[in-house]
C-alpha cells in the first residue's frame, strides 16, 4: 500500500512562501504515488478560502483545489476558521472544514511521515 505524507501547514496563504512550498511538496508526492493529507491549523486555515485572487503571486487556493481534485485530502480547523471570520461554505471545493480530534488525529494515525510547514 502507498505510504502517506502528512503536511501540517500553519502559515497563511499570503504570509510567506510557506503555503507554496506545501503545495509543491504535495504535488510532487501525489505524482510519485504517495497519499497526501494536508491539515491547515492556525493561520494555515486561510489556504482553503475560496475566491483568493492575488494578482501577481501564485494562487494557493486554486492550486489546493486542483490537488484536492487529484486525490489530496485537505482539512482545516473549524475553530481557527471561526476566529478569523471564515465560515463553512466559504471553502475551496474539495476541501473540508473539520477538527483536530476527528481529522488531524486520523491524519496522524494514517500517516507515515509528517512535515510541518510553519514559521
Amino acid at each position: 500500500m502507498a505510504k502517506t505524507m502528512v503536511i501540517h501547514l500553519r502559515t497563511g496563504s499570503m504570509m510567506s512562501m510557506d503555503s507554496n512550498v506545501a503545495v509543491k511538496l504535495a504535488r510532487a508526492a501525489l505524482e510519485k504515488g504517495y497519499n497526501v493529507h494536508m491539515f491547515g491549523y492556525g493561520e494555515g486555515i486561510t489556504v482553503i478560502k475560496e475566491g483568493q485572487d492575488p494578482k501577481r503571486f501564485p494562487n494557493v487556493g486554486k492550486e489546493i483545489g486542483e490537488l484536492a481534485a487529484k486525490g489530496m485530502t485537505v482539512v482545516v480547523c473549524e475553530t481557527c476558521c471561526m476566529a478569523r471570520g471564515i465560515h463553512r461554505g466559504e471553502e475551496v471545493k474539495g476541501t473540508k472544514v473539520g477538527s483536530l480530534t476527528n481529522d488531524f488525529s486520523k491524519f496522524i494515525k494514517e500517516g507515515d511521515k509528517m512535515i510541518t510547514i510553519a514559521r
Partner: protein
Amino acid sequence: MTSILFVMLKSPHENVNLELVDELGKGSKKAALLFEDAVYYAVDKKQGKHLSEHVDEVFVMADDLAARGFKGKATGMFKEIDYPEAVDVIMERYDRTVTI
C-alpha cells in the same frame, strides 16, 4: 539509531532554533532540508559552516536558490535538489522530520 531530517524555512539570521540541530541530533544520522530563505545557508560562508558542522548532509531546494540569485552556487556538502527528490528524502531516507 533514529535518523533525523531537520526542515528549515527561515533565513540563517532569523532562525533561533539551531540549538535543536545541535542538541537533538547528537549521536544520530542527520541532515538538513533547506527551503525558502534557509537556502542562504548554502552561500553564506559563516552560517553555512556552522550548519555543516552539525549535520551529515544538506539538501537545498534549487528553485529557491535560483530565485535569490544563486543558481548552481551551492558547494561542498550542500546539494541542490528538486521537489521529487525532496519528497524522497522526507518519505524514504530519514525516520523523523523536525521543522525548526
